[in-house]
C-alpha cells in the first residue's frame, strides 16, 4: 500500500515537473516550430501543430541579412566582454574574499543593487560619453558596456567561489614564497577553475542575450544577433515565420552552449546554496 502510494506520488511529481518545464520552454519551442512554417501557417488563427516543414524562411533570412556578420559580433562582444570583466572581477573578488574590510559586505550589496536599476536610467549619459569617445556602433563600445553591466554579478559569484577556497592553502603558498600574483595564478585560479568557468558561461549568456544596449548603441557595423532579430520586426511589417527563423538562428548557438554546459551552470548558480 505504502509502495503504491509512493509510486503514485512520484508519478504526480514527474507529471507536474514536465508540465512546468513545458510551460517554461513553450515560447522557445513554439518559436522553433514557427520558423519551419510558411508565413500563412504562422499567422493562422488556428495554431497548426502538424505542417510540412520548410526551410524557406531560413534561406530568406540569410539572403536579407548577413547572419555570420551579426553572429561574429555576438561572439566577439560576449566572449570579449566576459574576458575583460574577469580581468577586474578576479582581483576584486580575491581582495574581498581574503582581505575583507568592514565595508566589504555593503560594497557587494551596493554593486548588486546597481543591477536593479533599469538600464534606461543611464542611457543618456552613456550615449553622450560614447558619442564623444566615438564608441557608438563599435564592438569595443558594446563590449565595454556589457562588461561593466555584468561586472557586479561576476564579482559576486567569484567572491562566493573564492570564499570556499581554504585560506590556509593560500597561506601555505605565502610561506612557500608566493607573492599575490603567484598566489592568484598558481593557487587560487586552478582551485576555483570550475567556479570561474561557470561564472564565465553565465556572463557570456547574459552578454549574448543583452538587447537594450545593443539596440541603442549599435547600428550596422557592431550590431550583434539581438539587433539582427530586431531588424526583422520592421519596416515591412511583421513576418512571423521569418522573424522566428531569425530568432532561432540567434538563440541556437547559446542554447547549444547552455545545453553542453548545463552541469557546470547549475553547479555555479546553486553554489553555496546546499552543502
Amino acid at each position, binding site marked *: 500500500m505504502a509502495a503504491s502510494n509512493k509510486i503514485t506520488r512520484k508519478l504526480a511529481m514527474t507529471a507536474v515537473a514536465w508540465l512546468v518545464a513545458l510551460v517554461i520552454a513553450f515560447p522557445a519551442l513554439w518559436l522553433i516550430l514557427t520558423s519551419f512554417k510558411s508565413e500563412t501557417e504562422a499567422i493562422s488563427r488556428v495554431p497548426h501543430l502538424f505542417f510540412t516543414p520548410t526551410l524557406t524562411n531560413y534561406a530568406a533570412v540569410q539572403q536579407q541579412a548577413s547572419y555570420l556578420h551579426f553572429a561574429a559580433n555576438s561572439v566577439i562582444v560576449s566572449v570579449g566582454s566576459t574576458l575583460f570583466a574577469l580581468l577586474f572581477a578576479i582581483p576584486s573578488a580575491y581582495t574581498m574574499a581574503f582581505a575583507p574590510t568592514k565595508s566589504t559586505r555593503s560594497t557587494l550589496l551596493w554593486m548588486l543593487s546597481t543591477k536593479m536599476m533599469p538600464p534606461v536610467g543611464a542611457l543618456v549619459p552613456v550615449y553622450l560619453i560614447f558619442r564623444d569617445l566615438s564608441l557608438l556602433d563599435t564592438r569595443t563600445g558594446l563590449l565595454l558596456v556589457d562588461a561593466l553591466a555584468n561586472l557586479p554579478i561576476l564579482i559576486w559569484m567569484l567572491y562566493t567561489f573564492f570564499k570556499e577556497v*581554504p585560506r590556509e592553502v593560500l*597561506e601555505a603558498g605565502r*610561506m612557500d*614564497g608566493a607573492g599575490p600574483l603567484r598566489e592568484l595564478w598558481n593557487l587560487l585560479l586552478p582551485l576555483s577553475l570550475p567556479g570561474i568557468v561557470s561564472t564565465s558561461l553565465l556572463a557570456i549568456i547574459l552578454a549574448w542575450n543583452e538587447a537594450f544596449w545593443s539596440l541603442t548603441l549599435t547600428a550596422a557595423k557592431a550590431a550583434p544577433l539581438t539587433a539582427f532579430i530586431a531588424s526583422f520586426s520592421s519596416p515591412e511589417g511583421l513576418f512571423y515565420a521569418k522573424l522566428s527563423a531569425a530568432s532561432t538562428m540567434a538563440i541556437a548557438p547559446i542554447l547549444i552552449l547552455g545545453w553542453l554546459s548545463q552541469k557546470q551552470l547549475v553547479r555555479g548558480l546553486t553554489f553555496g546554496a546546499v552543502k
Partner: protein
Amino acid sequence: MATVELKQIRKSYGDHEIIRGIDLTLNDQELTVFVGPSGCGKSTLLRLIAGLEDIDSGDLLIDSLRVNDIAPARRGLALVFQSYALYPHMNVAENMSFSMKLAGISKPERDAKVLEAARILHLEDLLDRKPKDLSGGQRQRVAIGRAIVRNPKVFLFDEPLSNLDAALRVRMRLELTTLHRKLAATMIYVTHDQVEAMTMADRIVVLNAGRVEQVGTPMELYRTPRNLFVAGFIGSPKMNFLPATLLADPHAHTVGIRPEHIGVADEGLPATVQLVEHLGSESYIHAQLVTGEPITLRLNGESTLTPDQTIHLTFDPQHVHRFDHEGNAIEPVHKPQLKNSQL
C-alpha cells in the same frame, strides 16, 4: 638552525587584545611546545612568528635579526598547518617542490631534495599521487616534507596531529620526535593537548589568555607548577584542588594533589566512591569527600573498589602543592610536614 626571541610582543583584533606582551627566548635545536586551552593565543603567536599576522608592537628576532617587517617566506621558517593545507591540484612531488620552484632552484636539484625528504618520510611510492588519494597520516607527512625541503631555520607546527585518529596520533607523535632528533632542528609546536606537550617537548610554554603562565621542561612544570592554572593544565587526569583548611595549612588558600599521589588506606580522609574507570593498567576512581569536594585517584592495575563504597585517602606530603589566595604557588620551603593523621 636558529634561536627565536620575542620581546614584548602584542597583538589585538579590534579592542580585543589576544597577545599581551610576551617575552620568550626559544633555544637553538630545541623543540618548544606552546600549550594552552582554546583561545589562549597560542596559534596567533605562531602565526605572528610565521609572519602570517602583523605584530602590533614588540620585536621578533630570528638569529638576532629583527624580522617584524620581513615577508613570511623570507624569514626562513616553514609552517605545517593543522589542516595540512596541501595544494589539492598538485601531486605530492609538486606540493613539496613548489617553494623551490618559486625560489628558482633547478629541476634536478628540486627532484633530489624531494626524493631525500620522501625517503625520510617514507613517501617514495606516493610522489605521483594527489592529496585526495592519500590517508590523513600520509597527508601529514607530505605537509612535513614540504617543510623539510625548504631546509628552514625553524619548523613551526600548528596542531598538526589534531585531525588524526588516536592511534595514528600516537604514531605520528613518535615520528615527529624522531624527526626532530634526526634533523636537530629548532621547532615550535602548538597544541592544546598536554599529553603531546609532555611527551614531545624539550621545553613547554604554557599560555593562558594571551600571557605566558610558565616556561620549563615537562617535568619542571609537572613537579613545580607556578600557579593553579599550570597545575590544573599539566597532568592527566588533572590535579585535585582542595581548600587548604582540609589540611589545616594556615599559609595556603588551596592545596593541589595529583590523582597519582593519593593512596587508599585503612585510615585517612573519608570519601565515597562514585565511579570507577578501568583502563587496564590503571584505574581512575572518582570519589567525593565527606565535605562535598570531588576528588580523583589514579591507582595502578585493576581496582576492586565499587561505587558507593567508603574509602580512606592518604596523601604523600611531599607531593602536596600549595597555592595562595591569588592562585600562585607557595614556595616549597613553607610546605609543612604534613602527616596523614592530620588529614
